[in-house]
């Protein structure tokens, strides 16, 4: 298992290196425009552009330029120039909000997604299954940009149950933190609840036909034991992979619409604002930040996967 984890970590570093090279190429090499101009922003003075050119060393060779960029990223010197704010600081500022949103939503979507999927599967074909299928498909079909305003309109303006967006740090007031996040959590979770319940249901129906499930029944396990220990347990394995991708992406700041509509100053909103204003440094920073968390979460998921499914460790056991 240690070897497996070590292998995954090496792979993770390789992927991150590749991503940083791609970011460099896409933003610095490919565009015809002077990269210093892009970095400086739309209304930059010629002096600023000149300074940036010198600072980033755009006269150097490409590998040298890449090293300069990476040095800036790692030392926190990647800055947006108007106004002059380190990108690093803005991302770190946004992390509590984005993490609160992503983790809370993930807990909700996993819990309800799996619960609905499990109930659907063990009652497959019955009225409960049909009802839950309808609910899931509705959840998958409603776009976030529609669901969020509708929830806000009814639960904030019409009936004042929840506050109108904003993020309250947990350290300041845990109750308000929760109160402010409930709507965004559900908004973000609804699609995944529908999706995960469908995926789990279909996995479970497949697993139910496996020979080992018949074996489990033949040895006298109760129906509940068969369903939880054998059917559900084995059906979760593919769901874990899916969860790694989704959760990684959410942590990485892809909940842009939710963060924007609920005025949550997270990483996603920071990226969205930067895109709107054509500010290159934040876009680069967020891209690298996002890549790091997507890769990190997926590495963790791979390790969990290997723990859940011993066959994944096959390479290791063959060499022992």
């Amino acid at each position, binding site marked *: 298992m240690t070897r497996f984890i070590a292998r995954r970590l090496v792979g993770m570093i390789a992927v991150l290196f590749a991503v940083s090279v791609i970011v460099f190429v896409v933003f610095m090499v490919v565009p015809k425009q002077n990269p210093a101009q892009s970095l400086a922003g739309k209304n930059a003075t010629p002096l600023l552009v000149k300074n940036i050119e010198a600072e980033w060393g755009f006269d150097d060779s490409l590998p040298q330029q890449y090293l300069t960029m990476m040095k800036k990223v790692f030392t926190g010197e990647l800055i947006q120039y108007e106004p002059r704010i380190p990108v690093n600081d803005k991302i770190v500022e946004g992390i509590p909000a984005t993490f609160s949103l992503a983790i809370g939503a993930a807990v909700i979507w996993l819990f309800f997604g799996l619960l609905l999927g499990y109930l659907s599967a063990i009652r497959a074909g019955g009225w409960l299954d049909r009802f839950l299928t309808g609910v899931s498909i509705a959840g998958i079909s409603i776009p976030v940009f529609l669901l969020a305003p509708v929830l806000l309109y009814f639960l904030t303006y019409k009936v004042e149950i929840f506050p109108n967006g904003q993020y309250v740090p947990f350290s300041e007031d845990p109750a308000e933190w929760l109160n402010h996040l409930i709507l965004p959590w559900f908004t973000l979770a609804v699609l995944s609840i529908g999706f995960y319940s469908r995926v789990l249901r279909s996995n479970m129906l497949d697993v139910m036909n*496996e*020979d*080992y499930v*018949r*074996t*489990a*029944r*033949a*040895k*006298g*396990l*109760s*129906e509940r*034991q068969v369903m939880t*220990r*054998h059917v559900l*347990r*084995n059906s979760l*394995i593919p769901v874990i992979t899916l969860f790694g991708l989704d959760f990684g992406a959410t942590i990485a700041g892809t909940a842009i619409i939710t963060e924007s509509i609920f005025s949550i100053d997270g990483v996603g909103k920071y990226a969205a604002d930067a895109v709107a204003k054509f500010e290159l440094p934040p876009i680069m920073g967020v891209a690298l930040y996002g890549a790091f968390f997507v890769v990190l979460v997926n590495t963790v998921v791979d390790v969990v996967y290997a723990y*859940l*499914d*011993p*066959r994944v460790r*096959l390479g290791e*056991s063959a060499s022992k």
Partner: protein
Amino acid sequence: MSQPLLSVEELRVGFATEAGVVQAVDGVSFDLRPGEVVAIVGESGSGKSVTAQTLIGLTRANNARIEGSVKLDGKELTSAGDAEMRSLRGEKVAMVFQDPMTSFNPVYRIGAQIVEAIRAHRPDTSKADAKARVIGLFESVGIPNAEQRVDDYPHEFSGGMRQRAMIAMALALEPEVLIADEPTTALDVTIQAQILDLLEQLNRERNLATILITHDLGVVAEVADRVLVMYAGKVVEQGTLDEIFYDPQHPYTWGLLGSLTRIDRPRPQRLPQIAGQPPSLLDLPQGCPFRPRCPHEFSKCSEYPGLEARLAEKPDHCDRCWLGPDEKRAKRLVEGQIGLEAPR
């Protein structure tokens, strides 16, 4: 003779499907006594596996209709509650399945899966005790290094070892009846022989009543005491091993025997086979379902005969064929051996 341990009478299992009712098992009756091996033989789809699984209630489903009677120690099982059936499974009647590759859950250690079976019935057994017991079982079914191998995952076992582990699991609670559903089909020939030897030895040592489901008459000849030959959900012939092998009455049995390859005879040019396919259970021919494949069919075959003893001196040797005993004796000989002549 001792009392039957398991007594099956006129068992019928039908499944409602969109295309109509599939009568997978249609009137199967037999008795099983302690220490006895009854083989159920037939092609795929003949109803042999459904028969076996119905005995322990594994075919119960919303669309299944189960009629007739299955009595274990005099207790009716077809009407027993689900919880009651569950307590019998593994404890009194255990099952060994065809494909040892897929019959263990790949994500749990083999030992743990057997411990699970033990603790499902004996919740008071500690995990350590149950595991010690599994190690003992592994040794008795011939798994080497039992102490290390209990902690292996299924993919770390070879096919033959997995089937041994499967048998160990079936024996874990000392059942009275063992149902082996094609236990050797997925194994290569040398391993087949080992597994059959093991089953035979267990049958002898533990006085275990065994139902052996197979399509392989070679396997039957090794271990069975009595044989049921099934075709399209019905028993077409049943009798003792010797009766079935040396005095087969039904043309289908002749065909099965004729298609055995034997090393003590000259090798045939072509491997003999029974022409045609088994009929669809949704669209059975009128009368005898074997009629379309039978070279000896005649006018009477449009009516299906009952399963009756047709030989005066053999009251337990029954079959479903209209041909008279002398006709059968003459017609079943193909080049001096039992077989089914090629259809015209």
